[in-house]
């Protein structure tokens, strides 16, 4: 009983395989050129410095070579991608202004009415542009800015100019350079000194055009003593051809501030998901990345925290799930640039049906960064014998007075566990779902309630009816 049909357990079957027939107002021609970049900037009526930033990034992109490590990216054809699509000319200001077909897509995604009311702001990135955004009044009164990045640039150019591209320079890596050249949408969040945002700020992202890239750009600034939890989740329609998602997220957490950034990504299994996420944390600040990667064809994502001043603390909690033909190369990067800084990395990965996961982590302690502490724990769960998990823990420690721990485990769902659970009346698929849910529980319990429920439900649903 225990292993015969396990490979039929369908955890990665894509749940939202639909797309609406949206007619974009402007679609750039396929391929990347200076003309395309200039046209994007012109359409957005951007200041000259942003155009310069984009053009410099384009030159960096052309110079940079593709990564020679991690996942196989050879199937990305940069000439076969639309770099910009604009679904409508103006932004909807209220829910009533949101077009009906877009609303119907939200309905299918199951974004509940109640959520729109209770959440602080719902930004939905539909194609390349944010089409709807609202901010609850009391957030505005507190001086919190939560806008799509394009509006952020228009309405708060002074702030954006000070921080944009400072955490991730436009030539940081090939995909960050690509994003810097053609970025569109994403979120701009500014939390003033001492302000605590009690409810998570949420955004929903979605790709909806064949061969279209998604290049959103998010910038979050947390002033001293402030707190914010930003949540993004995405689902995408299934298309036959390859799709590219290459986002950049920059976060600045100042003295005593705290930021948590939660992502659950469930891209359809044809998407290359290549994201650069980086935060800088100053004195006594805390930055936490919570990252779940369920879908996509290939993911390469290593959220980073640069611990710049004493007392700074960084965390990465991540879940990766790889099924058939999926490669999740995920991990974390912690740079201890000051004494008395600490970091914690907890990574959980699940592989099945020949899927491949990798934990790729980098912990750096700079000279004289004394009394740093870093704890890395990565656990892999293999559902069958065909699947694979690798661990690449890089350490670069240039200071002796430090406490660094690394622990890695690879486990399998054992026959004993399945037998035990089934001896209580659970079916094999229920038993399997229970072991998998338990494995990721330490991270799921950190998620906002609705995400935790959704995550467990997704696992249960996919296990049900998929065995014999």
């Amino acid at each position, binding site marked *: *009983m*225990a292993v015969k049909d396990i490979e039929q357990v369908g955890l990665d079957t894509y749940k939202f395989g639909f797309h609406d027939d949206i007619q974009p107002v402007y679609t750039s021609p396929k391929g990347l050129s200076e003309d395309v970049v200039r046209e994007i900037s012109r359409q957005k009526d951007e200041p000259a410095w942003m155009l310069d930033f984009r053009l410099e990034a384009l030159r960096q992109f052309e110079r940079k070579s593709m990564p020679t490590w991690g996942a196989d990216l050879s199937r990305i054809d940069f000439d076969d991608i639309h770099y910009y699509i604009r679904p409508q000319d103006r932004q909807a200001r209220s829910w009533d202004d949101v077009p009906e077909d877009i609303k119907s897509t939200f309905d299918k995604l199951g974004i509940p009415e109640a959520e729109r009311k209770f959440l602080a702001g719902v930004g939905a990135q539909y194609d390349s542009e944010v089409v709807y955004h609202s901010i609850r009044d009391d957030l505005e009164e507190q001086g919190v800015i939560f806008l799509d990045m394009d509006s952020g640039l228009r309405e708060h150019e002074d702030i954006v100019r000070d921080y944009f591209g400072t955490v991730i320079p436009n030539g940081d890596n090939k995909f960050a350079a690509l994003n810097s050249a053609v970025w569109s949408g994403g979120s701009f969040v500014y939390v003033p000194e001492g302000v605590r945002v009690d409810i998570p700020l949420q955004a929903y992202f979605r790709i909806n055009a064949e061969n279209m890239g998604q290049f959103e750009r998010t910038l979050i600034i947390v002033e001293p003593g402030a707190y914010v939890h930003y949540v993004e989740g995405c689902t995408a329609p299934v298309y036959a051809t390859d799709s590219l998602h290459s986002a950049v997220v920059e976060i600045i957490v100042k003295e005593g501030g705290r930021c948590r950034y939660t992502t659950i990504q469930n891209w359809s299994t044809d998407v290359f998901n290549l994201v650069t996420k980086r935060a800088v944390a100053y004195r006594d600040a805390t930055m936490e990345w919570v990252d779940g990667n369920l879908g996509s064809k290939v993911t390469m994502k290593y959220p980073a925290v640069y611990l710049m001043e004493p007392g700074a603390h960084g965390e990465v909690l991540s879940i990766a799930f790889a099924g058939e033909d999926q490669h999740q190369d995920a991990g974390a990067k912690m740079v201890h640039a000051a004494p008395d800084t600490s970091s914690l990395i907890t990574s959980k990965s699940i592989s099945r049906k020949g899927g491949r996961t990798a934990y790729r982590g980098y912990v750096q302690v700079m000279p004289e960064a004394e009394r740093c502490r870093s704890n890395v724990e990565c656990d892999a769960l293999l559902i069958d014998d065909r699947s694979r998990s690798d661990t690449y823990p890089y350490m670069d420690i240039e200071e002796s007075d430090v406490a660094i721990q690394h622990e890695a485990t690879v486990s399998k769902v*054992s*026959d*004993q*566990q399945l*037998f*035990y*659970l*089934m*001896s*209580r*009346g*659970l*079916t*094999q698929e*229920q*038993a399997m779902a*229970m*072991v998998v*849910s*338990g*494995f*990721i*529980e*330490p991270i799921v319990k950190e998620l906002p309630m609705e995400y935790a429920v959704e995550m467990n439900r997704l696992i249960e649903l996919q296990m049900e009816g998929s065995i014999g």
Partner: protein
Amino acid sequence: MTATNGQTTLSIRDLHVSVEDAEILRGVTLDVPAGEVHALMGPNGSGKSTLANALMGHPAYDVTAGQVHFKGRDVLDLETDERARLGMFLAFQYPAEIPGVRVASFLRLALNARRESEISVMAFRRLLLEKMQMLRMDPKFASRYLNEGFSGGEKKRNEILQLAVLEPELAILDETDSGLDIDALRIVADGVNRLRGSDLGVLVITHYQRLLNYIEPDRVHVLIDGRVVESGGKELAERLEAEGYERYGAATTSEDA
């Protein structure tokens, strides 16, 4: 065939079981009628745990000949979970650890698996607390991860808690006394005794007579080299305690706890 209420819950006939091609059970015949407690005693290596695992359908245990009927139904073709939903229960000697899964959520799913309609969260909560009280367990126990980091005694008590909540018609207790101190043993035995009644058949598998001081058996069977060599009343257990298994020509070992 003895039967207090005329109904035999478990009927084993000439059961042969192999593990990795080595024959461990070589023709076991045994009945456990509803409402009775039967003890199966034997030295290490006699096949006691093999019988327990084979009855519950562990895939590593190959039934090569014989029959097992439960409530009149041939169960050898049934999967483990189907046997469980039919009313069979095994209290494990070494329960598996399931990290990240709370005792309460596991037990609610297991209970719902054998019910027609789902029990409400509140009703389940009440049921669980009541059973935990009976076994003198801290309510916090319900939110711990299943068997992870449990002491030997906690694991065994957790098995009996599951027995109490799931209310099966046949309970096989596999060396439930091993690893228990005398207080834990009393509590576990108390729990089993409260569950005794007209319906529940119990097969207590043990090396020692100790547990049988607290759970008094209706019948005692002696398993040697994969066969039941003698059956009798509870006095048989006392005799085994005094004389050991040597009279059956079996080598006794003392490594078992």
